[in-house]
């Protein structure tokens, strides 16, 4: 479930200065300072997080960037999967929508 109103046009960002991460065999532990929570992320979720910490991305941009990164096809990594990951990360606060002015 999203943490608030969702729009298709949203761009998503993550402030990497707010979390610490450690990789163990394709899984990632992420400590999020604002919530004090420790999250266990798979490579895909962590991929979304890293991409969004470089610059804000839309859902479509994220999907294509991650397909390139992990060498996956559109059927292997559909946009709906990215949408689910975004919603999950939105709920944790790790990902936030960019306020459009």
């Amino acid at each position, binding site marked *: *479930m*999203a*943490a*608030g*109103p969702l729009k298709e046009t949203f761009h998503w960002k993550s402030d990497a200065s707010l979390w610490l991460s450690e990789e163990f065999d394709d899984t990632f532990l992420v400590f999020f300072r*604002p*919530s*004090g929570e420790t999250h266990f992320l798979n490579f895909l979720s962590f991929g979304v997080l890293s991409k969004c910490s470089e610059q804000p991305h839309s859902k479509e941009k994220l999907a294509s960037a991650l397909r390139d990164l992990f060498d996956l096809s559109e059927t292997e990594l559909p946009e709906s999967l990215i949408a689910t990951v975004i919603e999950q990360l*939105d*709920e944790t*606060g790790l990902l*936030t*929508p960019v*306020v459009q002015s």
Partner: protein
Amino acid sequence: MKLTVLRCIVGESELPQDVMEAISVINYADSNHILGQMAHCCNQPSMIGVQDVFNNAKLRAKHDHTMLLFEMDRVSRALQGSGVKAVILKGGAYVARGFKASMGRRVSDLDILVASQDLARTENLLKAANWVPDEQTDNAYDQQYYRDHMHELPPLRHKTRGTVIDVHHSLLPRTARYRVNVDKMLETAVPISDHELWTFQPLDIFAHSAVHAFFDGQLDVPARTLVELKLLYDDLSEDEKAFLGKRAKEIGADKAVAMALWVIGNVFGDAKASAQARWLMHPSRNIMLKRALISKTVNGRFSIFAKGFLYLRGHYLRMPIHLLFPHLLRKAIRWRPASSAPPQLPTP
């Protein structure tokens, strides 16, 4: 316990040199939930072990603040783009404003205030973001009771985080005997940077704390209330203090503010506060309440009587008699333990 213990807790007198006396002051502060405030106010105690005890208390409060600030962030996200002006109340406001009164203070639930016309929309937006009715009040009687008589929605609990938010549309119950002008307070609310959230201006934060202390509830932990009022008063600038009485009258909080100032003057020996209290209210007013308050704070000879008085008064203030008795009866019959699971504790 003597009332002067409170001066020690706010750092205006030294921690006793005798170990057993120091321990009893620390225990008093701990059981009255003001050990964290004490840890921040007391400067550099030399006694061995005190620093560890203080650090524990500071960490606990810091953790609360982290949680609360994150909840604010989540509320801001849930209301994003809606245009709802949500004002953070009480502890949350002190933390958001970085007030001295927030330092070391334990906070748990988040309280927000929205204008009456935004209430339904706020509730829907929060529910869409995974807040659900808290199971303790999720029954027809409580839901209806809150909506008919209270100044807040039935509490909402976040489904995954388990945190509770109270959404207010007023500062006192619909049924209360006193009214404060919330609209005037909303007008001068101040935005919090980085979030689409607001707090009252500092004078109104003090006034609300006073109203909450003396006209809403039973003064369950009077020591904490007294310390909080004192620290909030210290947070006001001299200019703000000069304007406090006038502002209190404007928003209809003069009686509560007068009581608060009386406490600060009397318990903490602040002459300026005493003078302001006299300007707002004759010193002989509310003498029973003052006595009961002091007695309960220090657990003195009259404390059992005092507790009864404060309990009845608390309810009397919140609702008319024809509602009060059925409500107390119902409370007595339908009492049940808190349903929230206690923390997972190690077993022996």
